[in-house]
C-alpha cells in the first residue's frame, strides 16, 4: 500500500480551504474543544500526564521532549512566559508559515492550553518579519478569540487570564535560535546567550520561559482531545505522532505533507499522494533532510528506505529530521553549487559573536565559491576540512563537538562534511577542471 497523509494538525486546513483561518470556519470544525477539555481535566493533568504520555517532541529542530522542557520550570517562580517560535527561517522549511496563515486559531488554542498548564499569563509569538499575511491573520484571530472569551480574563470561566502579543522579527535567521530570539524580544541585537542558564530557568527578562515551535504548540489541542496515550500510538519508537514535512526541489508534487512518523523517505518522495516521484522520472542524486543545517543523504536504497525516525537517522547516518524540510535534487544538480549557496547563507547569517563561526563561515563560502568558478585547487577540500574542524571538532564522526556559543556554526559545516562523504571525487575533478556554472558573488 502506498503511503498517505495522516491529517491531524492539517485536517481543518485541508477540509475547509475556503475559510479555515476565520473564527467561524474554525469553530465549525471543532476549534477550542481541546481547550474546553483541558480546562475540565485541570492544569496538572495536561503537561505531566497527557503531553508526557503523548511523547511529543519539539518540531522546531532539536526534537526535545515537550513535557520534559516544561518540567524544568522552577516551582513557584512567577511570572513565567511562553514564547512561540514562529521565526521559520531554516532554508526550505515552509510548514509553520502554512499553520500561521491557514489555521491561526489552532495555534492560539494550543497557546492557551500550554499557558494554562504552565501558569503563564502573558505569551509572545515571535513572528518572522516577512510574514505579512500571517501577521494580519494572527492579529485578526487574536481579536476574534478575545471576543469569544477564549483569551483575556477569566477564560471560559476558569479564572485563568491570558494575553498574547505578536512580535515581528525583522530579517535575521539567527533569531530562530531560542536565546537570540529572547534577546531580540528584549529589543537587542539577536545574538545567542551562553547556556546554561537555559530559558526555562532564566529566559525572557531573566524569568522562567518556555520556548516552543508553532507546530509543537498546534499539536496540543489534538493531544488533549485524543488523549496522550492514543496520540503515542501513532509514529514509531520515540518519534511519536505525525509531523509536517516541507518537500521541495525536484519532486513532482512539492508541498507540505503531514505523515505518521516511521514511513520511509522513499514513501515521502515517491508515493503518488505525497511527493509523486522525481520530475521527468530522473534519479535522486541527493537530498537534504531536516533543513539546511543537516548533513545530506543520497539516492541509495539504504538512504531512501530509512524510516522517518528522529533517533534512527541521527544514529545511523548523522543527519537530522530537524525542521521537517526535505529538499530533493535530481542528477542534473551540481552538489558543490548547492553547498556553496548554503555556505553563503550561513556566512551571511552568522551573528559574529564567536570567532570560529564568524571567520570560518566566511572562509567556507570563499573557497567553495572559487571551486564553483573553476579556480579551485586540489588541496582545497582538505583545507575546507581544517576550517570545519576548527568550528566543529570531530565533524565526520557525529556526535561532534562545537567551539561556538550556538549550533549555527556547526550547521554551516554540514554541507562540507556531506561533500567529503559523498562527492569527494566530484569536488576534486572540479578543482582540476573548468568552471561549471558562472555564479555572481553578492
Amino acid at each position, binding site marked *: 500500500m502506498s503511503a498517505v497523509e495522516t491529517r491531524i494538525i492539517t485536517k481543518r486546513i485541508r477540509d475547509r480551504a475556503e475559510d479555515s483561518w476565520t473564527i467561524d470556519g474554525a469553530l465549525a470544525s471543532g476549534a477550542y474543544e481541546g481547550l474546553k477539555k483541558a480546562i475540565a481535566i485541570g492544569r496538572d493533568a495536561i503537561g505531566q500526564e497527557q503531553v508526557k504520555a503523548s511523547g511529543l517532541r519539539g518540531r522546531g529542530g532539536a526534537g526535545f521532549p515537550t513535557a520534559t522542557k516544561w518540567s524544568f520550570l522552577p516551582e513557584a517562580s512567577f511570572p513565567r512566559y511562553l514564547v512561540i517560535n514562529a521565526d521559520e527561517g531554516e532554508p*526550505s522549511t*515552509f510548514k509553520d508559515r502554512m499553520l500561521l496563515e491557514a489555521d491561526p486559531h489552532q495555534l492560539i488554542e494550543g497557546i492557551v492550553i500550554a499557558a494554562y498548564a504552565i501558569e503563564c499569563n502573558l505569551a509572545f509569538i515571535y513572528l518572522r518579519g516577512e510574514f505579512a*499575511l500571517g501577521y494580519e491573520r494572527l492579529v485578526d484571530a487574536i481579536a476574534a478569540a478575545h471576543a469569544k472569551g477564549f483569551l483575556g480574563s477569566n477564560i471560559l470561566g476558569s479564572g485563568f487570564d491570558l*494575553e498574547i502579543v505578536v*512580535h515581528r522579527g525583522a530579517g*535575521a535567521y539567527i533569531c530562530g535560535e531560542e536565546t537570540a530570539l529572547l534577546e531580540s524580544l528584549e*529589543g537587542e541585537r539577536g545574538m545567542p546567550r551562553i547556556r546554561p542558564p537555559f530559558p526555562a530557568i532564566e529566559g525572557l527578562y531573566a524569568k522562567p520561559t518556555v520556548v516552543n515551535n508553532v507546530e509543537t504548540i498546534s499539536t496540543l489541542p489534538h493531544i488533549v482531545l485524543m488523549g496522550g496515550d492514543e496520540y503515542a500510538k501513532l509514529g514509531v519508537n520515540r518519534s511519536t505522532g505525525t509531523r509536517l514535512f516541507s518537500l521541495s526541489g525536484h519532486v513532482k508534487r512539492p508541498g507540505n505533507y503531514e505523515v505518521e512518523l516511521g514511513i520511509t523517505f522513499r514513501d515521502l518522495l515517491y508515493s503518488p499522494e505525497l511527493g509523486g516521484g522525481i520530475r521527468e522520472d530522473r534519479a535522486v542524486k541527493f537530498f537534504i533532510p531536516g533543513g539546511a543545517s543537516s548533513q545530506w543523504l543520497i539516492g541509495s536504497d539504504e538512504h531512501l528506505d530509512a524510516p522517518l525516525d528522529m533517533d534512527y537517522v541521527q544514529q545511523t547516518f548523522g543527519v537530522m529530521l530537524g525542521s521537517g524540510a526535505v529538499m530533493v535534487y535530481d542528477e542534473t544538480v551540481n552538489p558543490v553549487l548547492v553547498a556553496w549557496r548554503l555556505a553563503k547563507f550561513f556566512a551571511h547569517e552568522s551573528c559574529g559573536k564567536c570567532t570560529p563561526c564568524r571567520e570560518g563561515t566566511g572562509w567556507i563560502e570563499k573557497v567553495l565559491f572559487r571551486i564553483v568558478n573553476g579556480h579551485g585547487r586540489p588541496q582545497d577540500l582538505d583545507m575546507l576540512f581544517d576550517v570545519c574542524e576548527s568550528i566543529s571538532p570531530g565533524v565526520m564522526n557525529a556526535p561532534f563537538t562545537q567551539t561556538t556559543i550556538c549550533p549555527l556554526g556547526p550547521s554551516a559545516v554540514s554541507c562540507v562534511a556531506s561533500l567529503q562523504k559523498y562527492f569527494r571525487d566530484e569536488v576534486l575533478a572540479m578543482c582540476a577542471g573548468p568552471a561549471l556554472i558562472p555564479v555572481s558573488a553578492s
Partner: protein
Amino acid sequence: MTFTTKNLERARTIVASYPRPKSAVLPLAHLAQDQDGWLSPEAMREIALMTGIEPAEVLGTCSFYTMFKRDPVGRLVVSVCTNVTCLVTGGPELLEHLVDRYSDDDEVFVEEVECLASCDGAPAMQVNYEFHDGLTTASAEDIIEAYKRGELVARGTSGGRLS
C-alpha cells in the same frame, strides 16, 4: 519624520503591551518604516524617547536586522530568493533579470534575500512582503508592473505607507 497622530497612538499602545519598554524597539521601527518607507535617524530618535533608551542603542539594534532600510528605498521593495530550492529552479536568473530591468527605476528596489518559506512554489519573491511564486522572468515583471499601476496593492506592512 515624526509619527502621525494616529501612529503615535498605535506606538503608545505597542509600548504599553510589553513588560519593558525596550522590547518595543523592533515593533516601533516597523511602524516607522510602514509610515515612511524607511527608518530615518529622526524616527530612531523618536523611538529612543518612547522606549527610554539612547538613539545609539536603537541604531545598534536596528542595524542588525536586514528588513530595516536605513536609506530611502523605492516604493516597491522586491525581494527575490536565491536559496537552495530557488537556486535550482531559476531564482538567480530571476534576480539578475529584475536587477537589470529596474536599475533605472526609482520606484522599484530589488534585493536578494534568503529562503522565503515559499519553496514549494520556487522560484519565489515578495513585493512589499506579499508572496508571489511559481515565477518566470516575464510573470514576475508583469506582477511588478501591476503594483506600479496600482492594480495590486500590498497589505500595508513595511514598504507600504501607513498614515
